[in-house]
């Protein structure tokens, strides 16, 4: 193998380089300037950089090649996820234009960390080499550990950062240990090489390898917040600044699922009979625990946190089947899930007041009469999360469960359906508060109106309706993305 990397290969990582460049500029801005104007400029620069990166990423659709001595990969799967992350980044940055200033956490560093986080996600989902996946994961995680604790005067935020950091570091250890055990038992550290190796050495079974596979699952299970590795989720999602919660709930989950799907569907399909049983239990637990616990929550951010756990369970339902063609259902679901969550968290931001990071159900009371537009948007997001047609959430659930039925996992599909019914209760409860309750407290009904929030909610609503009513384009896109497993 030649050590030299042709310079021309760098043109394939232009989006990543744009993000890095803009991030560095923002970092310098962060230490040289301060004040709301500088924060606004930083935000606009961040959005501009992400848009550039998105344009270059979309242009790479259809490309399929390995670069940097097989350490990095450009393929439809990666491009699909990269575009999703950049869309998430743009939406979160738009919300932050106002929110970060309101909470006085804005400035160059805030946006630089958002960009570095997305950079990590992009690296993580576009490589089949364990080391690159790990580096991407760490770049993403480090940025988010800091972002969680930005509300320095709030105890809950600091607690969230510390909790996420400690547990995250522990989970990363599991992941790395798993990778090293798989490397130890096979001598290979590239997922595609592993696939070829297993094709030759079937049936392959080594105790160390099986343990390594388990550790890998634990590491990824933590990042996607599946039960029993979910304990951090509600506290961290509640304590973190709400814009960051939206960013974590969508971006981190999508990135972790992206890497998980790529690793398992490329190399470990021959062992599907083994891990599918374990994940069967995990998926049922994740759906059920997430939904049942959400029923008794009173804080909307916490409800959404438990709902995000439950949604990880729904996606795992399709993951279990190991059906490489139908893996597109997970991609479609993640896309729909991202838009509905960003929308819902934006609505939470609108209802929250400055310096108050909680979001009690009571603060939503009477929203329907006072601010019909916000209540309407929130209702659409909640209905989509509950899986009501014609919204994208319904199509996603339908697609995921039909994958399970097709692979004859009938019980799993039934448990999934039952869970969706249970979930409808707590989503509709928020709607009930908005439309059928009188406002409570003296400051009730005061919301933070800003065109940025409205724009983000409109984009999310349009995306959900479009993906729900005309899902074909998106499903075809997701199918092309999973074509790499074929």
């Amino acid at each position, binding site marked *: 193998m030649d*050590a*030299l990397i042709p310079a021309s290969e760098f043109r394939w990582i232009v989006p990543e380089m744009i993000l890095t460049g803009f991030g*560095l500029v923002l*970092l*310098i801005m962060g*230490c040289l300037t301060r004040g709301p104007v500088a924060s606004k400029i930083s935000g606009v620069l961040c959005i501009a950089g992400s848009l550039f990166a998105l344009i270059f990423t979309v242009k790479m659709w259809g490309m399929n090649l390995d670069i940097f001595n097989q350490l990095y990969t450009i393929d439809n799967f990666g491009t699909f996820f990269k575009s999703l992350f950049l869309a998430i980044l743009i939406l979160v940055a738009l919300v932050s234009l106002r929110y970060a200033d309101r909470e006085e956490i804005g400035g160059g560093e805030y946006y630089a960390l958002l960009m570095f986080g997305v950079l990590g996600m992009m690296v993580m989902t576009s490589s089949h080499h364990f080391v690159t996946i790990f580096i991407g994961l760490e770049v993403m995680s480090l940025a988010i550990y800091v972002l969680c604790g930005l509300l320095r005067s709030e105890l809950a935020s600091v607690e969230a950062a510390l909790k996420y950091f400690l547990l995250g570091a522990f989970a990363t250890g599991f992941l790395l240990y798993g990778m090293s055990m798989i490397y130890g038992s096979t001598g290979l550290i590239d997922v595609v090489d592993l696939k070829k190796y297993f094709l030759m050495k079937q049936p392959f079974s080594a105790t160390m390898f099986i343990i390594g596979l388990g550790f890998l699952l634990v590491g990824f299970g933590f990042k996607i917040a599946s039960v029993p590795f979910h304990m951090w989720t509600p506290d961290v999602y509640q304590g973190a600044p709400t814009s960051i919660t939206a960013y974590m709930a969508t971006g981190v989950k999508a990135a972790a699922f992206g890497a998980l799907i790529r690793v398992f569907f490329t190399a470990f399909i021959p062992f599907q009979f083994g891990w599918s049983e374990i994940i069967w239990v995990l998926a049922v637990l994740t759906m059920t625990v997430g939904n049942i616990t959400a029923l008794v929550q009173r804080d909307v951010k916490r409800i959404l946190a438990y709902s995000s756990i439950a949604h990880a369970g729904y996606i795992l339902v399709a993951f279990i089947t190991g059906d490489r063609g139908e893996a597109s259902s997970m991609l479609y679901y993640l896309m729909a899930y991202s838009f509905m969550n960003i929308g819902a968290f934006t609505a939470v931001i609108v209802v929250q007041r400055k310096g108050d990071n909680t979001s009690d159900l009571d603060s939503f009371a009477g929203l329907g009469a006072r601010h019909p537009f916000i209540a309407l948007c929130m209702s659409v997001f909640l209905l989509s999360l509950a899986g009501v047609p014609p919204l994208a959430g319904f199509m996603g659930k339908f697609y995921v469960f039909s994958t399970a039925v097709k692979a004859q996992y009938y019980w799993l599909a039934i448990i999934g359906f039952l869970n969706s019914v249970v979930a409808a209760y707590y989503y509709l409860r928020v709607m009930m508060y908005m439309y059928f309750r009188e406002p409570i407290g003296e400051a009730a009904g005061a919301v933070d109106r800003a065109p940025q929030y409205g724009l983000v909610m409109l984009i999310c609503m349009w995306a959900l309706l479009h993906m729900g009513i005309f899902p074909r384009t998106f499903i075809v896109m997701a199918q092309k993305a999973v074509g790499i497993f074929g």
Partner: protein
Amino acid sequence: MLEYVAIFVMFCLAGIIAAAIIGFSHVLGHRTKSKTKLAPYECGMTTTGPTRRRMTIRYYIVAMLFLVFDIEIIFLYPWAVVSRRLGLFGFIEMLIFVFILFIGYIYIWKKGALEWE
């Protein structure tokens, strides 16, 4: 697994030797309990102040920053070994790498992380 037996034996031996040394000195050793002898050992100097002193957080910041730039130096070594083969292209790549860390350096400088007082 057989090739790891040697390591396991070495672990056991290390444990036995350590336990033996401590055990023998405990059983055979002659003990005088004077105040100086029981005090925490501090390089032969007279102990000053309480043992559990609170350290200022600056130590940790400086230690952390040191680590980052220390690792940067380590990354320069493998490049230096093959720098002739990599040529100008490798040199520019390394400059970019150092430049990114340089921006980090400016950042911590401007943020006042290097100021002691």
